[in-house]
Protein backbone atom coordinates (compact mmCIF):
# COMPACT_ATOMS: atom_id res chain seq x y z
CA UNK A 1 0.00 0.00 0.00
CA UNK A 2 2.79 2.42 0.95
CA UNK A 3 4.67 1.53 -2.23
CA UNK A 4 1.61 2.17 -4.38
CA UNK A 5 1.07 5.51 -2.64
CA UNK A 6 4.68 6.61 -3.16
CA UNK A 7 4.66 5.56 -6.82
CA UNK A 8 1.22 7.15 -7.34
CA UNK A 9 2.30 10.49 -5.87
CA UNK A 10 5.50 10.39 -7.91
CA UNK A 11 3.66 9.71 -11.17
CA UNK A 12 1.15 12.49 -10.55
CA UNK A 13 4.01 14.92 -9.94
CA UNK A 14 5.77 13.73 -13.08
CA UNK A 15 2.65 14.22 -15.19
CA UNK A 16 2.15 17.72 -13.73
CA UNK A 17 5.77 18.61 -14.53
CA UNK A 18 5.55 17.22 -18.06
CA UNK A 19 2.24 18.88 -18.88
CA UNK A 20 3.18 22.14 -17.14
CA UNK A 21 -0.32 22.35 -15.68
CA UNK A 22 1.17 23.96 -12.59
CA UNK A 23 4.63 25.45 -12.01
CA UNK A 24 7.10 22.58 -11.63
CA UNK A 25 8.20 23.70 -8.17
CA UNK A 26 4.57 23.69 -7.00
CA UNK A 27 4.08 20.19 -8.42
CA UNK A 28 7.15 18.89 -6.61
CA UNK A 29 6.37 20.57 -3.30
CA UNK A 30 2.82 19.22 -3.52
CA UNK A 31 4.29 15.74 -3.93
CA UNK A 32 6.63 16.32 -1.00
CA UNK A 33 3.66 17.33 1.15
CA UNK A 34 1.98 14.10 0.05
CA UNK A 35 4.84 11.77 1.00
CA UNK A 36 5.28 13.54 4.33
CA UNK A 37 1.55 13.54 5.06
CA UNK A 38 1.15 9.80 4.55
CA UNK A 39 4.32 9.11 6.50
CA UNK A 40 6.37 7.44 3.74
CA UNK A 41 9.40 9.46 4.81
CA UNK A 42 10.11 11.84 7.66
CA UNK A 43 12.69 14.48 8.51
CA UNK A 44 15.37 11.91 9.29
CA UNK A 45 15.06 10.15 5.92
CA UNK A 46 14.66 13.34 3.89
CA UNK A 47 17.14 15.73 5.46
CA UNK A 48 19.93 13.58 6.92
CA UNK A 49 20.05 10.25 5.09
CA UNK A 50 22.59 9.77 2.28
CA UNK A 51 20.40 7.06 0.80
CA UNK A 52 16.99 8.70 0.79
CA UNK A 53 17.61 12.34 1.62
CA UNK A 54 18.28 15.58 -0.19
CA UNK A 55 21.66 15.50 -1.92
CA UNK A 56 23.15 18.62 -0.35
CA UNK A 57 26.28 18.26 -2.49
CA UNK A 58 24.15 18.96 -5.55
CA UNK A 59 22.28 21.86 -3.93
CA UNK A 60 25.42 23.62 -2.71
CA UNK A 61 27.35 22.94 -5.91
CA UNK A 62 24.55 24.63 -7.84
CA UNK A 63 24.36 27.51 -5.35
CA UNK A 64 28.13 28.09 -5.45
CA UNK A 65 28.25 28.09 -9.25
CA UNK A 66 25.28 30.45 -9.45
CA UNK A 67 27.21 32.92 -7.28
CA UNK A 68 30.34 32.50 -9.42
CA UNK A 69 28.29 33.23 -12.55
CA UNK A 70 26.54 36.19 -10.90
CA UNK A 71 29.96 37.77 -10.33
CA UNK A 72 31.24 36.96 -13.83
CA UNK A 73 28.24 38.50 -15.55
CA UNK A 74 29.02 41.79 -13.81
CA UNK A 75 32.39 41.94 -15.59
CA UNK A 76 31.11 42.07 -19.21
CA UNK A 77 33.46 39.24 -20.20
CA UNK A 78 30.89 37.33 -22.17
CA UNK A 79 29.73 40.34 -24.19
CA UNK A 80 33.35 41.20 -24.93
CA UNK A 81 34.11 37.73 -26.24
CA UNK A 82 30.94 37.47 -28.32
CA UNK A 83 31.46 40.84 -30.05
CA UNK A 84 35.16 40.18 -30.49
CA UNK A 85 34.24 36.88 -32.17
CA UNK A 86 31.67 38.55 -34.42
CA UNK A 87 34.24 41.10 -35.56
CA UNK A 88 36.80 38.39 -36.33
CA UNK A 89 34.29 36.83 -38.76
CA UNK A 90 33.89 40.23 -40.49
CA UNK A 91 30.15 39.66 -40.53
CA UNK A 92 30.18 36.44 -42.55
CA UNK A 93 27.17 34.47 -41.27
CA UNK A 94 28.44 30.88 -41.13
CA UNK A 95 31.77 31.70 -39.44
CA UNK A 96 29.76 33.91 -37.08
CA UNK A 97 27.50 30.98 -36.19
CA UNK A 98 30.53 28.73 -35.71
CA UNK A 99 32.25 31.17 -33.35
CA UNK A 100 29.13 32.07 -31.36
CA UNK A 101 28.07 28.44 -30.92
CA UNK A 102 31.61 27.36 -30.02
CA UNK A 103 31.82 30.14 -27.46
CA UNK A 104 28.43 29.05 -26.08
CA UNK A 105 29.48 25.40 -25.91
CA UNK A 106 32.76 26.19 -24.12
CA UNK A 107 31.03 28.56 -21.68
CA UNK A 108 28.32 25.95 -21.06
CA UNK A 109 30.97 23.46 -20.00
CA UNK A 110 31.88 25.80 -17.13
CA UNK A 111 28.61 27.58 -16.41
CA UNK A 112 25.08 26.25 -16.37
CA UNK A 113 23.30 26.20 -19.72
CA UNK A 114 20.45 28.51 -18.82
CA UNK A 115 22.84 31.22 -17.66
CA UNK A 116 24.96 30.82 -20.76
CA UNK A 117 22.07 31.25 -23.17
CA UNK A 118 20.76 34.18 -21.14
CA UNK A 119 24.15 35.83 -21.62
CA UNK A 120 24.59 35.02 -25.30
CA UNK A 121 21.03 35.77 -26.53
CA UNK A 122 21.09 39.61 -26.18
CA UNK A 123 24.47 39.95 -27.87
CA UNK A 124 23.32 37.63 -30.66
CA UNK A 125 20.31 39.87 -31.26
CA UNK A 126 22.56 42.92 -31.40
CA UNK A 127 24.95 41.35 -33.93
CA UNK A 128 22.15 39.87 -36.05
CA UNK A 129 20.26 43.18 -36.15
CA UNK A 130 23.48 44.86 -37.33
CA UNK A 131 23.95 42.21 -40.02
CA UNK A 132 20.26 42.25 -40.99
CA UNK A 133 20.14 38.51 -40.30
CA UNK A 134 17.24 36.49 -38.92
CA UNK A 135 18.41 35.70 -35.36
CA UNK A 136 16.22 32.59 -34.92
CA UNK A 137 18.64 30.05 -36.50
CA UNK A 138 21.46 31.56 -34.43
CA UNK A 139 19.48 31.34 -31.19
CA UNK A 140 18.44 27.74 -31.90
CA UNK A 141 22.02 26.78 -32.81
CA UNK A 142 23.33 28.37 -29.62
CA UNK A 143 20.95 26.51 -27.33
CA UNK A 144 21.73 23.22 -29.09
CA UNK A 145 25.46 23.91 -28.69
CA UNK A 146 24.89 24.83 -25.06
CA UNK A 147 23.28 21.47 -24.33
CA UNK A 148 26.05 19.64 -26.19
CA UNK A 149 28.90 21.58 -24.54
CA UNK A 150 27.33 21.32 -21.09
CA UNK A 151 27.46 17.53 -21.29
CA UNK A 152 31.26 17.52 -21.17
CA UNK A 153 31.82 18.45 -17.51
CA UNK A 154 30.52 17.82 -14.02
CA UNK A 155 29.18 21.39 -13.69
CA UNK A 156 28.04 21.93 -17.28
CA UNK A 157 24.58 20.46 -17.00
CA UNK A 158 22.47 19.82 -13.87
CA UNK A 159 21.94 16.10 -14.71
CA UNK A 160 25.73 15.69 -14.62
CA UNK A 161 25.87 17.23 -11.15
CA UNK A 162 23.29 14.70 -9.93
CA UNK A 163 25.16 11.82 -11.61
CA UNK A 164 28.54 12.99 -10.29
CA UNK A 165 27.29 13.15 -6.75
CA UNK A 166 25.45 9.83 -6.86
CA UNK A 167 28.29 7.92 -8.56
CA UNK A 168 31.14 9.81 -6.89
CA UNK A 169 32.55 10.91 -10.23
CA UNK A 170 34.85 13.93 -10.31
CA UNK A 171 35.17 16.89 -12.68
CA UNK A 172 38.18 15.21 -14.29
CA UNK A 173 36.27 11.91 -14.67
CA UNK A 174 33.59 13.73 -16.66
CA UNK A 175 36.08 15.67 -18.76
CA UNK A 176 38.20 12.63 -19.60
CA UNK A 177 35.27 10.32 -20.35
CA UNK A 178 32.77 12.69 -21.96
CA UNK A 179 35.08 15.42 -23.30
CA UNK A 180 36.26 13.47 -26.39
CA UNK A 181 32.80 12.44 -27.56
CA UNK A 182 31.42 15.91 -26.93
CA UNK A 183 34.23 17.35 -29.04
CA UNK A 184 33.30 14.96 -31.84
CA UNK A 185 29.60 15.74 -31.42
CA UNK A 186 30.34 19.47 -31.53
CA UNK A 187 32.33 19.18 -34.76
CA UNK A 188 29.52 17.13 -36.28
CA UNK A 189 27.00 19.72 -35.12
CA UNK A 190 28.96 22.58 -36.71
CA UNK A 191 29.20 20.72 -40.02
CA UNK A 192 25.51 19.88 -39.85
CA UNK A 193 24.69 23.53 -39.13
CA UNK A 194 26.21 24.59 -42.45
CA UNK A 195 23.47 22.60 -44.13
CA UNK A 196 20.43 22.86 -41.82
CA UNK A 197 20.69 26.62 -41.30
CA UNK A 198 21.87 27.40 -44.87
CA UNK A 199 18.88 29.68 -45.58
CA UNK A 200 20.00 32.01 -42.80
CA UNK A 201 23.43 32.69 -44.24
CA UNK A 202 22.88 35.79 -46.36
CA UNK A 203 25.78 38.22 -46.52
CA UNK A 204 25.37 42.00 -46.77
CA UNK A 205 28.72 43.76 -47.09
CA UNK A 206 27.36 47.15 -45.96
CA UNK A 207 25.71 45.58 -42.91
CA UNK A 208 28.92 43.71 -42.16
CA UNK A 209 30.74 47.04 -41.90
CA UNK A 210 28.38 48.13 -39.12
CA UNK A 211 29.45 45.16 -36.99
CA UNK A 212 33.02 46.40 -37.24
CA UNK A 213 31.85 49.67 -35.64
CA UNK A 214 30.96 47.88 -32.38
CA UNK A 215 33.51 48.45 -29.65
CA UNK A 216 33.80 45.28 -27.57
CA UNK A 217 36.15 46.94 -25.06
CA UNK A 218 33.26 49.12 -23.90
CA UNK A 219 31.51 45.98 -22.59
CA UNK A 220 34.15 45.74 -19.87
CA UNK A 221 32.97 48.20 -17.24
CA UNK A 222 36.04 47.83 -15.01
CA UNK A 223 39.12 45.87 -16.19
CA UNK A 224 40.24 45.31 -12.59
CA UNK A 225 36.97 43.55 -11.78
CA UNK A 226 37.37 41.44 -14.89
CA UNK A 227 40.85 40.33 -13.88
CA UNK A 228 39.70 39.51 -10.36
CA UNK A 229 36.69 37.59 -11.68
CA UNK A 230 38.88 35.59 -14.05
CA UNK A 231 41.33 34.78 -11.26
CA UNK A 232 38.49 33.42 -9.10
CA UNK A 233 37.13 31.41 -12.04
CA UNK A 234 40.61 29.98 -12.67
CA UNK A 235 40.89 28.96 -9.01
CA UNK A 236 37.47 27.31 -9.15
CA UNK A 237 38.43 25.32 -12.25
CA UNK A 238 41.78 24.32 -10.73
CA UNK A 239 39.87 23.38 -7.56
CA UNK A 240 37.57 21.11 -9.58
CA UNK A 241 40.53 19.47 -11.31
CA UNK A 242 42.42 18.90 -8.03
CA UNK A 243 39.34 18.25 -5.92
CA UNK A 244 39.92 14.51 -5.66
CA UNK A 245 43.59 14.82 -4.62
CA UNK A 246 42.77 17.65 -2.23
CA UNK A 247 40.11 15.50 -0.62
CA UNK A 248 37.31 18.04 -0.89
CA UNK A 249 33.90 17.76 -2.50
CA UNK A 250 32.99 19.73 -5.65
CA UNK A 251 30.28 21.51 -3.67
CA UNK A 252 32.92 22.92 -1.31
CA UNK A 253 34.99 24.13 -4.28
CA UNK A 254 31.92 25.86 -5.72
CA UNK A 255 30.92 27.43 -2.40
CA UNK A 256 34.46 28.72 -1.83
CA UNK A 257 34.41 30.08 -5.38
CA UNK A 258 31.04 31.76 -4.85
CA UNK A 259 32.22 33.43 -1.66
CA UNK A 260 35.52 34.48 -3.26
CA UNK A 261 33.67 35.92 -6.24
CA UNK A 262 31.45 38.03 -3.98
CA UNK A 263 34.59 39.44 -2.36
CA UNK A 264 36.60 39.86 -5.57
CA UNK A 265 33.82 41.40 -7.66
CA UNK A 266 31.95 43.39 -5.02
CA UNK A 267 28.40 44.44 -5.68
CA UNK A 268 25.08 44.75 -3.91
CA UNK A 269 24.22 41.53 -2.10
CA UNK A 270 20.72 41.75 -3.59
CA UNK A 271 22.26 41.68 -7.07
CA UNK A 272 24.04 38.42 -6.28
CA UNK A 273 20.98 36.91 -4.62
CA UNK A 274 18.83 37.90 -7.61
CA UNK A 275 20.92 35.67 -9.84
CA UNK A 276 20.60 32.65 -7.56
CA UNK A 277 17.78 30.56 -8.99
CA UNK A 278 16.10 29.77 -5.69
CA UNK A 279 13.18 28.13 -7.45
CA UNK A 280 15.54 25.67 -9.14
CA UNK A 281 17.20 24.84 -5.82
CA UNK A 282 13.84 24.21 -4.16
CA UNK A 283 12.81 22.10 -7.16
CA UNK A 284 15.92 19.94 -6.73
CA UNK A 285 15.34 19.54 -3.00
CA UNK A 286 11.75 18.46 -3.59
CA UNK A 287 12.80 16.00 -6.29
CA UNK A 288 15.33 14.39 -3.98
CA UNK A 289 12.66 13.94 -1.29
CA UNK A 290 10.28 12.33 -3.79
CA UNK A 291 12.93 9.99 -5.22
CA UNK A 292 14.04 9.24 -1.66
CA UNK A 293 10.48 8.11 -0.90
CA UNK A 294 10.68 5.68 -3.85
CA UNK A 295 13.99 4.36 -2.51
CA UNK A 296 12.50 4.07 0.97
CA UNK A 297 9.57 1.89 -0.18
CA UNK A 298 11.80 -0.29 -2.36
CA UNK A 299 10.37 0.82 -5.72
CA UNK A 300 13.77 1.85 -7.09
CA UNK A 301 15.28 -1.45 -5.99
CA UNK A 302 12.47 -3.38 -7.70
CA UNK A 303 12.90 -1.40 -10.93
CA UNK A 304 16.67 -1.95 -10.90
CA UNK A 305 16.20 -5.67 -10.30
CA UNK A 306 13.74 -5.87 -13.20
CA UNK A 307 16.21 -4.05 -15.45
CA UNK A 308 19.03 -6.34 -14.31
CA UNK A 309 16.93 -9.36 -15.29
CA UNK A 310 15.95 -7.72 -18.58
CA UNK A 311 19.52 -7.09 -19.73
CA UNK A 312 20.57 -10.56 -18.54
CA UNK A 313 24.18 -9.67 -17.86
CA UNK A 314 24.70 -8.05 -21.27
CA UNK A 315 26.52 -4.71 -20.83
CA UNK A 316 25.87 -3.76 -24.46
CA UNK A 317 22.13 -4.04 -24.01
CA UNK A 318 22.31 -2.16 -20.70
CA UNK A 319 24.50 0.63 -22.08
CA UNK A 320 22.59 1.30 -25.25
CA UNK A 321 19.23 0.72 -23.58
CA UNK A 322 20.09 3.48 -21.12
CA UNK A 323 21.56 5.73 -23.85
CA UNK A 324 18.59 5.59 -26.20
CA UNK A 325 15.98 5.31 -23.46
CA UNK A 326 17.39 8.37 -21.74
CA UNK A 327 17.56 10.34 -24.99
CA UNK A 328 13.95 9.47 -25.83
CA UNK A 329 12.58 10.24 -22.35
CA UNK A 330 14.62 13.43 -21.97
CA UNK A 331 13.10 14.70 -25.17
CA UNK A 332 9.66 14.44 -23.62
CA UNK A 333 10.26 15.37 -19.99
CA UNK A 334 12.77 17.71 -18.40
CA UNK A 335 16.04 15.81 -18.06
CA UNK A 336 16.58 16.91 -14.44
CA UNK A 337 13.71 14.92 -12.85
CA UNK A 338 14.50 12.07 -15.23
CA UNK A 339 18.11 11.81 -14.07
CA UNK A 340 17.17 12.34 -10.43
CA UNK A 341 14.93 9.27 -10.76
CA UNK A 342 17.26 7.15 -12.86
CA UNK A 343 20.45 7.76 -10.85
CA UNK A 344 19.50 5.46 -7.95
CA UNK A 345 18.23 2.92 -10.50
CA UNK A 346 21.57 2.91 -12.38
CA UNK A 347 23.44 2.77 -9.06
CA UNK A 348 21.46 -0.29 -8.04
CA UNK A 349 21.81 -1.85 -11.50
CA UNK A 350 25.62 -1.50 -11.30
CA UNK A 351 25.62 -2.88 -7.75
CA UNK A 352 23.47 -5.87 -8.72
CA UNK A 353 25.82 -6.83 -11.55
CA UNK A 354 29.17 -4.96 -11.67
CA UNK A 355 30.04 -6.56 -15.04
CA UNK A 356 27.36 -4.34 -16.62
CA UNK A 357 29.30 -1.20 -15.75
CA UNK A 358 32.90 -1.43 -17.06
CA UNK A 359 34.57 1.99 -16.73
CA UNK A 360 31.29 3.45 -15.41
CA UNK A 361 29.82 3.13 -18.90
CA UNK A 362 26.27 3.03 -17.53
CA UNK A 363 26.77 6.45 -15.93
CA UNK A 364 28.27 7.90 -19.12
CA UNK A 365 25.42 6.57 -21.23
CA UNK A 366 22.91 8.04 -18.78
CA UNK A 367 24.64 11.44 -18.92
CA UNK A 368 24.99 11.45 -22.71
CA UNK A 369 21.45 10.23 -23.32
CA UNK A 370 19.87 12.72 -20.93
CA UNK A 371 22.03 15.72 -21.90
CA UNK A 372 21.93 15.23 -25.66
CA UNK A 373 18.31 14.03 -25.62
CA UNK A 374 17.37 17.38 -24.09
CA UNK A 375 18.02 18.94 -27.51
CA UNK A 376 15.34 16.94 -29.28
CA UNK A 377 12.30 19.08 -28.51
CA UNK A 378 11.47 22.60 -27.41
CA UNK A 379 10.74 21.35 -23.88
CA UNK A 380 13.57 18.81 -23.54
CA UNK A 381 15.87 21.07 -21.51
CA UNK A 382 15.43 24.19 -19.41
CA UNK A 383 17.72 26.20 -21.73
CA UNK A 384 15.44 25.46 -24.71
CA UNK A 385 12.41 26.80 -22.87
CA UNK A 386 14.34 29.90 -21.78
CA UNK A 387 15.59 30.75 -25.29
CA UNK A 388 12.16 30.27 -26.82
CA UNK A 389 10.76 32.65 -24.18
CA UNK A 390 13.46 35.25 -24.85
CA UNK A 391 13.05 35.02 -28.61
CA UNK A 392 9.31 35.62 -28.28
CA UNK A 393 9.91 38.66 -26.09
CA UNK A 394 12.34 40.06 -28.65
CA UNK A 395 9.74 39.69 -31.40
CA UNK A 396 11.07 36.48 -32.99
CA UNK A 397 8.71 33.69 -31.89
CA UNK A 398 10.02 30.15 -32.34
CA UNK A 399 7.33 27.49 -32.62
CA UNK A 400 7.59 24.09 -30.94
CA UNK A 401 7.96 22.35 -34.30
CA UNK A 402 10.40 24.90 -35.69
CA UNK A 403 12.73 24.12 -32.80
CA UNK A 404 12.05 20.40 -32.82
CA UNK A 405 12.79 20.09 -36.55
CA UNK A 406 16.37 21.15 -35.94
CA UNK A 407 16.72 19.73 -32.42
CA UNK A 408 15.56 16.23 -33.30
CA UNK A 409 18.00 15.94 -36.18
CA UNK A 410 20.90 17.15 -34.04
CA UNK A 411 19.90 14.77 -31.24
CA UNK A 412 19.75 11.75 -33.55
CA UNK A 413 23.16 12.54 -35.06
CA UNK A 414 24.90 13.25 -31.74
CA UNK A 415 23.38 10.29 -29.88
CA UNK A 416 24.20 7.90 -32.72
CA UNK A 417 27.80 9.18 -32.64
CA UNK A 418 27.94 8.05 -28.99
CA UNK A 419 27.34 4.43 -29.98
CA UNK A 420 30.75 3.68 -31.58
CA UNK A 421 32.46 5.80 -28.93
CA UNK A 422 30.96 3.91 -25.99
CA UNK A 423 31.41 0.60 -27.75
CA UNK A 424 35.06 1.09 -28.65
CA UNK A 425 36.09 2.70 -25.38
CA UNK A 426 34.25 0.61 -22.81
CA UNK A 427 32.67 -2.48 -24.34
CA UNK A 428 34.87 -3.83 -27.15
Amino acid at each position, binding site marked *: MTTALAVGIFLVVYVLIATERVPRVVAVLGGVAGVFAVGIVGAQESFYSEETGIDWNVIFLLLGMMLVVAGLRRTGLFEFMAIWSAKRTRGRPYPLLVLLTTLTAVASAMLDNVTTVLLV*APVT*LLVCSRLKLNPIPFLIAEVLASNIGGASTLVGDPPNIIIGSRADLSFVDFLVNLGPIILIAMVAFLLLSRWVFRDAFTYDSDAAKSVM*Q*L*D*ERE*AIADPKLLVRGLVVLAFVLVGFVLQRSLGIDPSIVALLGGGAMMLAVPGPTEEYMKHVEWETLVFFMGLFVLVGALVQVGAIDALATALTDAVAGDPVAATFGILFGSAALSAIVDNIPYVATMSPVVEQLAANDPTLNPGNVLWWSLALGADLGGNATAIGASANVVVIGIAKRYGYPISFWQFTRYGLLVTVVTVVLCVPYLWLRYLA
Partner: protein
Amino acid sequence: MIAKQLAQPVGLVTTSDSVHDVARRMVDEGLPGLAVVADDGRPLAVLPASQVLGLAVPAYIKDDPSLARVVDEASADRLIDGLASLTVQGVLDDAEPDLLGTVPHDATLLEVACVMSQLRVSFLVVSGPDGKALGTITAQSVLGASLSQA
Protein backbone atom coordinates in the same frame (compact mmCIF):
# COMPACT_ATOMS: atom_id res chain seq x y z
CA MET B 1 -7.51 74.75 -6.34
CA ILE B 2 -8.72 71.75 -8.36
CA ALA B 3 -7.37 69.86 -11.34
CA LYS B 4 -9.82 71.42 -13.81
CA GLN B 5 -8.30 74.84 -13.15
CA LEU B 6 -4.83 73.62 -14.07
CA ALA B 7 -5.74 71.41 -17.04
CA GLN B 8 -4.33 72.55 -20.37
CA PRO B 9 -5.98 71.41 -23.60
CA VAL B 10 -2.66 70.26 -25.02
CA GLY B 11 -0.81 67.02 -25.42
CA LEU B 12 -3.70 64.83 -26.56
CA VAL B 13 -3.02 62.15 -29.17
CA THR B 14 -5.00 59.27 -30.63
CA THR B 15 -4.18 55.60 -30.90
CA SER B 16 -3.55 55.77 -34.65
CA ASP B 17 -0.77 58.39 -34.33
CA SER B 18 2.74 57.13 -34.91
CA VAL B 19 5.08 57.10 -31.92
CA HIS B 20 7.60 58.97 -34.05
CA ASP B 21 5.10 61.86 -34.47
CA VAL B 22 4.27 61.72 -30.77
CA ALA B 23 7.96 62.14 -29.95
CA ARG B 24 8.13 65.09 -32.33
CA ARG B 25 5.15 66.77 -30.61
CA MET B 26 6.69 66.28 -27.17
CA VAL B 27 9.79 68.08 -28.36
CA ASP B 28 7.95 70.85 -30.22
CA GLU B 29 5.46 71.51 -27.40
CA GLY B 30 8.02 71.05 -24.62
CA LEU B 31 5.86 68.49 -22.80
CA PRO B 32 7.06 65.71 -20.45
CA GLY B 33 4.47 63.37 -21.99
CA LEU B 34 1.22 63.12 -23.93
CA ALA B 35 -2.23 61.76 -23.16
CA VAL B 36 -3.80 59.16 -25.39
CA VAL B 37 -7.53 59.56 -26.00
CA ALA B 38 -10.05 57.36 -27.77
CA ASP B 39 -12.09 58.60 -30.75
CA ASP B 40 -14.92 59.61 -28.38
CA GLY B 41 -12.54 61.68 -26.24
CA ARG B 42 -12.15 59.22 -23.34
CA PRO B 43 -8.64 59.17 -21.86
CA LEU B 44 -6.93 55.85 -22.46
CA ALA B 45 -3.40 56.29 -21.19
CA VAL B 46 -0.54 58.59 -20.41
CA LEU B 47 2.55 58.28 -22.52
CA PRO B 48 5.48 59.84 -20.65
CA ALA B 49 8.56 60.90 -22.64
CA SER B 50 10.65 58.48 -20.60
CA GLN B 51 8.50 55.63 -21.87
CA VAL B 52 8.88 56.74 -25.47
CA LEU B 53 12.64 56.73 -24.91
CA GLY B 54 12.33 53.29 -23.36
CA LEU B 55 10.53 52.07 -26.49
CA ALA B 56 13.50 53.17 -28.56
CA VAL B 57 15.78 50.85 -26.58
CA PRO B 58 15.73 47.31 -28.02
CA ALA B 59 14.60 44.64 -25.56
CA TYR B 60 17.94 42.83 -25.80
CA ILE B 61 19.77 45.95 -24.63
CA LYS B 62 17.32 46.37 -21.74
CA ASP B 63 18.20 42.79 -20.76
CA ASP B 64 21.93 43.47 -21.03
CA PRO B 65 22.57 47.21 -20.56
CA SER B 66 26.32 46.78 -21.05
CA LEU B 67 25.57 46.32 -24.77
CA ALA B 68 24.46 49.97 -24.95
CA ARG B 69 28.10 50.96 -24.42
CA VAL B 70 29.44 48.90 -27.33
CA VAL B 71 27.21 50.59 -29.94
CA ASP B 72 29.02 53.37 -31.79
CA GLU B 73 27.94 56.99 -31.37
CA ALA B 74 26.54 57.42 -34.89
CA SER B 75 24.24 54.39 -34.54
CA ALA B 76 23.25 55.35 -31.01
CA ASP B 77 22.21 58.80 -32.24
CA ARG B 78 19.62 57.15 -34.48
CA LEU B 79 17.89 55.30 -31.64
CA ILE B 80 14.52 56.84 -32.53
CA ASP B 81 14.58 55.28 -36.05
CA GLY B 82 13.18 52.06 -34.67
CA LEU B 83 9.93 53.79 -33.73
CA ALA B 84 8.98 54.83 -37.27
CA SER B 85 6.60 51.94 -37.83
CA LEU B 86 5.19 51.84 -34.29
CA THR B 87 1.77 53.35 -33.50
CA VAL B 88 0.44 54.45 -30.14
CA GLN B 89 -1.98 51.51 -30.24
CA GLY B 90 0.99 49.15 -30.51
CA VAL B 91 2.45 50.68 -27.39
CA LEU B 92 -0.80 50.35 -25.46
CA ASP B 93 -1.14 46.69 -26.47
CA ASP B 94 2.13 45.92 -24.68
CA ALA B 95 1.72 48.42 -21.86
CA GLU B 96 1.38 47.69 -18.17
CA PRO B 97 -2.17 48.11 -16.84
CA ASP B 98 -1.20 51.00 -14.53
CA LEU B 99 -0.23 53.17 -17.48
CA LEU B 100 -3.56 55.01 -17.31
CA GLY B 101 -2.84 58.07 -15.20
CA THR B 102 -6.07 59.98 -14.92
CA VAL B 103 -7.51 62.28 -12.27
CA PRO B 104 -11.08 63.61 -12.09
CA HIS B 105 -11.67 67.29 -12.86
CA ASP B 106 -12.41 68.08 -9.21
CA ALA B 107 -9.29 66.42 -7.76
CA THR B 108 -7.36 68.63 -5.33
CA LEU B 109 -3.64 69.33 -5.70
CA LEU B 110 -2.96 66.75 -2.98
CA GLU B 111 -4.90 64.09 -4.90
CA VAL B 112 -3.08 64.95 -8.10
CA ALA B 113 0.30 64.86 -6.34
CA CYS B 114 -0.63 61.53 -4.76
CA VAL B 115 -1.51 59.91 -8.12
CA MET B 116 1.65 61.29 -9.75
CA SER B 117 3.88 59.96 -7.00
CA GLN B 118 2.14 56.57 -6.97
CA LEU B 119 2.51 56.14 -10.72
CA ARG B 120 5.91 57.87 -10.77
CA VAL B 121 4.85 60.12 -13.64
CA SER B 122 5.04 63.89 -14.02
CA PHE B 123 2.06 64.11 -16.31
CA LEU B 124 -1.64 63.18 -15.94
CA VAL B 125 -4.88 63.42 -17.87
CA VAL B 126 -7.78 65.37 -16.33
CA SER B 127 -11.15 63.84 -17.12
CA GLY B 128 -14.35 65.84 -17.16
CA PRO B 129 -17.77 64.93 -15.65
CA ASP B 130 -18.71 63.19 -18.91
CA GLY B 131 -15.56 61.04 -18.79
CA LYS B 132 -13.90 62.83 -21.71
CA ALA B 133 -10.41 64.27 -21.44
CA LEU B 134 -10.38 67.94 -20.53
CA GLY B 135 -6.65 68.32 -20.94
CA THR B 136 -3.41 67.49 -19.24
CA ILE B 137 -1.71 68.52 -16.05
CA THR B 138 2.01 68.48 -15.29
CA ALA B 139 4.00 68.18 -12.06
CA GLN B 140 5.43 71.63 -12.77
CA SER B 141 1.97 73.22 -12.89
CA VAL B 142 0.98 71.48 -9.64
CA LEU B 143 4.14 72.70 -7.90
CA GLY B 144 3.65 76.19 -9.32
CA ALA B 145 0.06 76.35 -8.16
CA SER B 146 0.98 75.15 -4.70
CA LEU B 147 3.84 77.65 -4.41
CA SER B 148 1.53 80.47 -5.41
CA GLN B 149 -0.76 79.58 -2.51
CA ALA B 150 2.07 79.50 0.02
